[in-house]
């Protein structure tokens, strides 16, 4: 275990020293820009746009960050031959792989924490501005209080925290997927490309699955059916993680639903890591 954490913290340190976190500036710029553009809109819509933009950007950034960072690891270590020195120590390939994955997760965690803090600060700041303006419009009294309550209800919502956790889970699945791909790929460009393609297909996979399950019985030997079945079994279903969209618009997502999606994500991470390990342990270095 200490070996895994040693590799994980080393991986995080590498990414930090490569100044990966500078992308946060971009995120901050987006958050501020959107807050600025949205400032003229009615308050409910204003908060909506801010949430949409912030969580959307968090999704994109965490996906890109995780996919690029993970795809680089193995090719870079093999090319620099740093892998040899590490594996020449009493470190198993499984420990190595888990350490790397954990390192990426640490990175993801820190990045998402930073983005969330930025997002909540921006949301809070706008909320305070809107509340101040509302109080000025209404003056003291029950009407003003009701209006402020309405503003508060539209702004921060505790449900946003599970939304961020779900984005984390989805990105974690993407990281494990990318690591699995890079355990047999020969270049990181290939890994990134396949990863992105799978990501996109993962969002339309439920359509293929539905079609596949619907046409059972009809013309069972058709090539189409084979294709649909293959798609349904091989590709992940990323649409199930889109309960984030529900949360963003302010709908409560029941805890059991959240739990199931989380468990599903864990299952994906486990399987992809396992398969990645099988490929990697048989790989010629």
């Amino acid at each position, binding site marked *: 275990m200490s070996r895994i954490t040693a590799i994980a913290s080393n991986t995080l340190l590498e990414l930090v020293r490569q100044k990966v976190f500078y992308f946060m500036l971009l995120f901050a710029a987006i958050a501020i820009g*959107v807050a600025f*553009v*949205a400032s*003229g*809109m*009615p308050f*409910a*819509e204003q908060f*909506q*746009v801010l949430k*949409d*933009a912030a*969580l*959307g*950007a968090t*999704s*994109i950034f965490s996906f890109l960050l995780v996919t690029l960072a993970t795809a680089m690891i193995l090719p870079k270590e093999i090319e620099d031959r740093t892998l040899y020195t590490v594996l020449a120590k009493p470190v198993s390939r499984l420990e190595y792989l888990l350490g790397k994955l954990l390192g990426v997760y640490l990175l993801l965690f820190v990045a998402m924490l930073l983005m969330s803090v930025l997002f909540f600060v921006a949301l809070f700041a706008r909320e305070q501005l809107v509340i101040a303006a509302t109080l000025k419009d209404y003056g003291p009294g029950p009407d003003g209080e009701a209006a402020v309550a309405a503003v508060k209800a539209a702004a921060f919502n505790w449900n946003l925290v599970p939304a961020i956790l779900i984005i984390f889970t989805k990105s974690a699945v993407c990281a494990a997927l990318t690591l699995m791909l890079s355990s*047999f790929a020969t270049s990181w460009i290939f890994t990134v490309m396949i990863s992105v393609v799978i*990501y*996109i297909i993962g*969002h*339309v996979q*439920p359509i293929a*699955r539905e079609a596949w*399950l619907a046409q059972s019985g009809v013309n069972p030997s058709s090539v189409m059916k084979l294709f649909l079945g293959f798609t*349904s*079994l*091989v590709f992940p*279903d*990323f*649409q*199930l*993680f*889109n*309960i*984030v*969209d*529900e949360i*963003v*618009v*302010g*709908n409560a*997502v*029941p805890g059991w*639903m959240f739990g*199931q*999606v989380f468990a*599903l994500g864990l*299952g994906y991470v486990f*399987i992809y890591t*396992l*398969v990645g390990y*099988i*490929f990697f*342990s*048989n790989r010629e270095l």
Partner: protein
Amino acid sequence: MKARVLGIAIILVFGAVRLPFEVRLEKEQRALHYHGAKLDLGMRQRLSQMGFVAALSGFRAVVATVLHIEAYTSWQRVEWGRLKLTYDTICALEPRNMQSWDMAAWHMAYNASVAARENKEQPRLALRLKAEREYFKLGEDFLLRGIENNPDHALLFERLATIYRDKFKDHEKASRYYEEAARRPDAMQYVHRFAVYELAKVPGREREAYERLKALYEKGEEERLPTLLRSLGELEEKLDVPKARRLYSPPPQKP
């Protein structure tokens, strides 16, 4: 070689194992009215290629944000036609975002309609009123579509009822939709009363409305709000309820 076969086999077996779980999860999510967006051909025509791919790959919120900003610009420039088209796309992208349906309907029924009625370029009043009414209809249309996608929430029912009440002056429909709103768990406390107030204005249903107002009145102090009392009084007047059995006593006239 063996490792590859083993790896692929594990992925396929995992696919088969998760299949029933995912199908069930999807059903459960549908039961909660998730996954409303249909990324169909119509959507493809409205979005750019980039936008479509982005929407397809789970970055729907990002595309929607851009569109929200576009809609806001159209409003600032009072381009109602473009505003409507943009909201069509936004709502199709995020059908579960009631805010968008609400905003779209509000722009149509309250902003665009007023602008149409006061259109300086159209001298004939009849045509201006016709245009105004068309915008009412567009607002209604947005809300009806919104309700289809969000039947589990009160907000859009209430908004639609309000448009029927204030714009179309159709008290029967208004009453019906307030009624619907009142049935949802997240309804505002006042909508059930609004349903009855509107019913009271429907010719021929005064008796029914009166009974329901009475029932509310009897529920206790928290229902006996000024508007309810006034409405009750009006009905008692209209229905000629004997003075002795009247619940509403008009405030003493100041000399």
